[in-house]
């Protein structure tokens, strides 16, 4: 028993040492950004939606080690579900988020049953294939989804019946920030819970987790489903705030860019996803407004730079600098 308790206690003491410091700083920065950039609220809201999406990818890939290039499938399905729900059933935003989460989780569960049996290349390929199938279905079901024209006519009711969506995007900003905070808290709990610890073990060595009696396949499907729910919320949020869902939600570039953002910040840590998304989106905003095609070049060079020089992401830079300047304890006298 005592052996089992060791990792839990170390994690608890670490949290007690710095109580939610990074989270508090990030929240404060978000509030400051609202007052600093009152004319860029739409961009800030889009960044927060992407943060939520990258957070869900962090759970799946950073914590559980599931290498997927089809995360957009879950995002897009959440977006279409929330959009269709708003058009045909009810325009209440919070219910819409729940619908988006349910749709994302359902797709993640069904596809996860197959995907979690595969590894490496096959897993990558299958995850892209799931996205392509979803895109094809959305494209062919023109009567329902609007096909290539996109799903239009989403008119949201006020949030909780109190706050109306305005043209400047103030409500959208606070709404997105609130959803982001709630989801972040949920993910924090999940990553510190027994299942979170168990998938980290699977990431390090699936064979050993099997040996100590952990149901690896079932754990992976569960964590993929939770990730799917969060990705679905991100999609639903995007649909509600922009009031449009297009086939672009299933684009391969979305999955690839989310992966790049995650690695840029540092996978396996929730605030890594936040930082990576922020840097990437700001660089994107500046570079793409100059020349959208050069952007692809910048992104490619950026990725190679990260992979070769800072493999641990931006969060790894302080440690790398410490190693560079500090004394090497292993060095021979």
């Amino acid at each position, binding site marked *: 028993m005592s052996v089992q308790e060791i990792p839990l206690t170390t994690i608890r003491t670490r949290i007690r040492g710095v109580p939610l410091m990074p989270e508090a700083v990030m929240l404060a920065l978000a509030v400051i950004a609202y007052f600093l950039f009152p004319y860029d609220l739409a961009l800030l809201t889009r960044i927060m939606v992407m943060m939520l999406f990258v957070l869900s990818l962090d759970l799946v*890939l950073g914590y559980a080690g599931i*290498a997927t*290039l089809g995360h957009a499938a879950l995002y897009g399905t959440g977006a279409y579900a929330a959009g269709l729900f708003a058009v045909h059933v009810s325009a209440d935003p919070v219910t819409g988020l729940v619908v988006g989460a349910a749709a994302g989780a359902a797709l993640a569960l069904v596809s996860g049953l*197959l995907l979690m*049996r*595969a*590894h*490496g*290349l*096959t897993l*990558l*390929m*299958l995850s*892209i*294939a799931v996205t*392509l*199938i979803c895109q*094809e*279905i959305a494209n*062919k079901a023109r009567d329902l989804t609007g096909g290539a024209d996109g799903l239009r006519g989403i008119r949201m009711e006020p949030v909780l019946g109190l706050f109306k969506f305005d043209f400047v995007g103030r409500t959208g900003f606070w709404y997105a920030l609130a959803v982001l905070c709630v989801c972040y808290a949920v993910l924090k709990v999940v990553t510190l819970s027994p299942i979170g610890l168990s998938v980290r073990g699977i990431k390090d060595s699936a064979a050993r987790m099997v040996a100590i009696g952990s149901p690896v396949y079932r754990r992976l499907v569960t964590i993929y489903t939770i990730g799917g729910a969060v990705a679905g919320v991100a999609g639903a949020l995007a649909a509600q705030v922009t009031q449009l869902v297009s086939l672009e939600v299933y684009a*391969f*570039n979305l999955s*690839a860019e989310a*992966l*790049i953002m995650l*690695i840029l910040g540092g*996978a396996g840590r929730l605030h890594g996803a936040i930082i990576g998304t922020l840097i990437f989106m700001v660089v994107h905003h500046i570079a793409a407004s100059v020349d959208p*095609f*050069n952007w*692809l*070049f910048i*992104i*490619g*060079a*950026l*990725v*190679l730079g*990260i*992979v*070769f020089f800072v*493999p641990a992401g931006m969060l790894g830079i302080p440690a790398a600098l410490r190693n560079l300047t500090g004394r090497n304890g292993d060095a021979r006298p």
Partner: protein
Amino acid sequence: MSLILNIAVDGIAYGMILFMISIGLSVTMGLMRVINLAHGAFALLGGAAAHALIARAGLSFMAAALLAIMATMAIAFLLERLVYRRIYGLGELQQVLATIGITFIFIALVNRLLGSSLLAIPLPDFLQQSVDLGFRVLPAHRLAVILAGAVVIAGLYLTIERSRFGTRLRAAVDNRSIASALGINIDAVFAATFCLGAGLAALGGILGAELLPIDAYYPLRYMVLFLIVVSVGGMGSITGSFMAALALGILETASRYLIPDFGTIVFFAAVMAVLAIRPRGLLGKA
């Protein structure tokens, strides 16, 4: 009857193209365990270079194709020496990221040099006509593709089963460290394999431009198709890749002819079913 024949000819031609483009990917994956998502970029380079040489420099189809393939192999050689060498030792995820980055850079480069529109490769007259086989008339291009595919397969078979280089390659795929301990220069074997794979991809890109149109986004658009051939066939297996490419080519062509509305969905559903039963591919090693 004529429908079945059309499906067979188009499907086999399509499968040959898929085989030519994917075989390099399969072998490099089996040999170096590197997930090279940028492999489609070599087909794009070949196609784009052929387009530029024919449309801008006015060369003949044959000369342009030959030059384009050689240029692609040269670029692949440099890339292998300078970039890929550093990728082999990285983790799976880092490999995926790095090769996506390389793909993006190639797309941006082709886009900058040749624009984002369709890069047509005009066929020479003798490939545009029809060939009368006595009982059927078939487009010469399809027959040429099938013929080229057969030549490639025969050449690969002879190289890999009969030549000294092939023996070394097979030994390296089976067990890299022991092959290296026996004095086989793994680095050289891999560099040669990588260039050969890139050259075949360029050939496939040029010959297949009718079926898989070339434009700057080619490597991303068809990435999944090439990955499917490799995973269904089994990494590192040439026979497996060939069988998978032919089967997938015929399946995709048949579903496009017979059920055009749901072709893509049927195609992917079939691929998923195969991989659910055999997660390591048809001829993959356990």
